[in-house]
């Protein structure tokens, strides 16, 4: 058996593995993507006949206040929950990496929300917001808390944020912990000799060193925030009066059962472009700020 023969057999094996898998990927990922793109130029309702209507869906998309509001809601949700999640996770991670008693158990407990399904968690919190919180708020006489926060158009979005954060914090904390554990101990010792303490130490020593983990958490959190669906489904179903309708919920709701297959396909195309643009921007912007040790 000569080497040349072996190499060509090896090449054939690689191709025999790669081509079917790429074909599968094309069939269930790229092809539906192309179909969605094609449907976005039609007035297809999901059934029956349809016509090609050019860019009309896109034209109406930018004038549709319901679509506009879903973008606004999704962005506000994603940004607020990303900031809240990262601040709380960072504090928790600093606590969980300090010299505490029962470190392993505490870390294990704080990770629990991440393993539970977000739909069921949403249902549990929905009950909490509707019955428990108002009864506590009413008894203590806190204004604004004596009724369900999910029932008001001005506060329902924050209920969704709380549930989203409750689960996201678990994951982000663990990622920050693994980041903090990569920081060598002697760096801190050198810093304390130089007189850096407290927030200064965190700001100038710790934070730059765990910058890559900050990047990961920002990207993860913002991406999950922009795709929020389960929590909406469980907590508000987009209500009250469409105030908490996220982009993916609207696409699901009106595209699949609302007879707007074509129109929502156009919405999905724009949504896709927005996600790609943000991801690329984040990786370029945040990726360049990492500190090398």
């Amino acid at each position, binding site marked *: 058996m000569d080497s040349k023969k072996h190499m060509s057999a090896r090449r054939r094996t690689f191709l025999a593995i790669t081509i079917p898998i790429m074909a599968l990927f094309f069939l269930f990922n790229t092809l539906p993507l192309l179909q969605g793109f094609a449907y976005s130029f039609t007035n297809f309702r999901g059934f029956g006949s349809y016509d090609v209507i050019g860019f009309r869906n896109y034209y109406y998309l930018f004038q549709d206040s319901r679509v506009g509001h879903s973008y606004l809601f999704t962005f506000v949700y994603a940004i607020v929950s990303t900031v809240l999640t990262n601040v709380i996770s960072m504090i928790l991670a600093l606590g969980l990496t300090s010299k505490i008693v029962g470190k392993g158990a505490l870390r294990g407990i704080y*990770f629990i929300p991440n393993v539970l399904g977000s739909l069921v968690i949403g249902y549990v919190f929905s009950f909490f917001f509707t019955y428990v919180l108002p009864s506590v708020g009413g008894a203590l006489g806190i204004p604004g808390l004596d009724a369900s926060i999910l029932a008001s158009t001005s506060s329902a979005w924050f209920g969704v944020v709380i549930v989203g954060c409750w689960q996201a914090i678990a994951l982000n904390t663990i990622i920050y912990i693994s980041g903090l554990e990569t920081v060598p101990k002697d760096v801190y010792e050198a810093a*304390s000799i130089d007189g850096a303490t407290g927030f200064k130490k965190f700001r100038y020593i710790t934070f730059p060193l765990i910058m890559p*983990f900050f990047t990961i958490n920002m990207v993860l959190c913002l991406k999950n925030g922009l795709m929020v669906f389960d929590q909406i489904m469980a907590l508000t179903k987009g209500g009250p009066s469409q105030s908490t309708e996220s982009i993916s919920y609207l*696409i699901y709701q009106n595209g699949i059962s609302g007879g707007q297959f074509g129109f929502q396909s156009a919405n999905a195309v724009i949504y896709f472009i927005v996600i790609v643009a943000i991801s690329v921007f984040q990786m370029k912007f945040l990726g360049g700020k990492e500190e090398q040790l």
Partner: protein
Amino acid sequence: MENSTKVVYSTEKVKKERKNIPVTVLLIIGCITVFFPLYMTVIIAFKQPSEMTNDIAGALMPPSAWSFSNFAQAMEVTDFWNSLLNSVLITVSTVVLSILIHSLAGYAVGRNMDHSKFYKFAYLYMVSGMFVPFAILMMPEVKQTAMMGIDNPVGVVILYIVFQLPQSMLLYTGYLRNIPLELEEAAYVDGASTWRTYWSIIFPNMKPMHATVAVLIAMAAWNDVMTPLVLMGGSDLNTLPLAQLNFQTAFSTNYNLAFASYLLSMIPILIFYLICQKQIIGGVTNGAVKG
């Protein structure tokens, strides 16, 4: 916290013994935010509708009697055992098939992407699938799977395998860089084909990455609502999360029954987490950091 760090680092010798009690206490108090929703789930699942008063006691006090009748009824209404079986079957087959297929793909692409334009393209093509939100694929996917006759658990498994491929591709190709080519060359000298070398040498060597991939995919598949919802929404087949969704739509007023059902759906993953906590946390961290 700041104080103690100063103390700890300036007095090297007592580092091991000195524990930060205030932070420990704060963190233990913080656990309430994790346990309270779970506590609420448990007490409401055990209560009777008559105990559900609208005051604080009604919401927070434990039930007067611990009866399992809600659970028995919830199991019947949600067809618990069948839903559980479907969830287990979907998750297990997704994980097993994904590991086999994704690791092969990662191997073939990872061994060639540095010197071949085609494989570099294949890599970028499949990894870029990560940016495609399910929302844009959802509607065509419903049509396509129905047309192919796989608008059922089989289709759900296929979609999971495809949607998880970008992440696994990143993880496996990254890990493959740690496995020297010399290992394979030794096997080749002994006359083994690439295919056989893969299964006897590379596949076992990628074991740590299999664990990471398995955890990530298992959790994603187990808790996912959207894919089974759009693919098998109209059918009698349920997964565990889907059963909760249908239950909620049909019997939204009986909270005790609903919460018994939620608790039942949480128990399997909580048990799994208790047993494999290290692997799960390790897998999730690995996946996020390397992926």
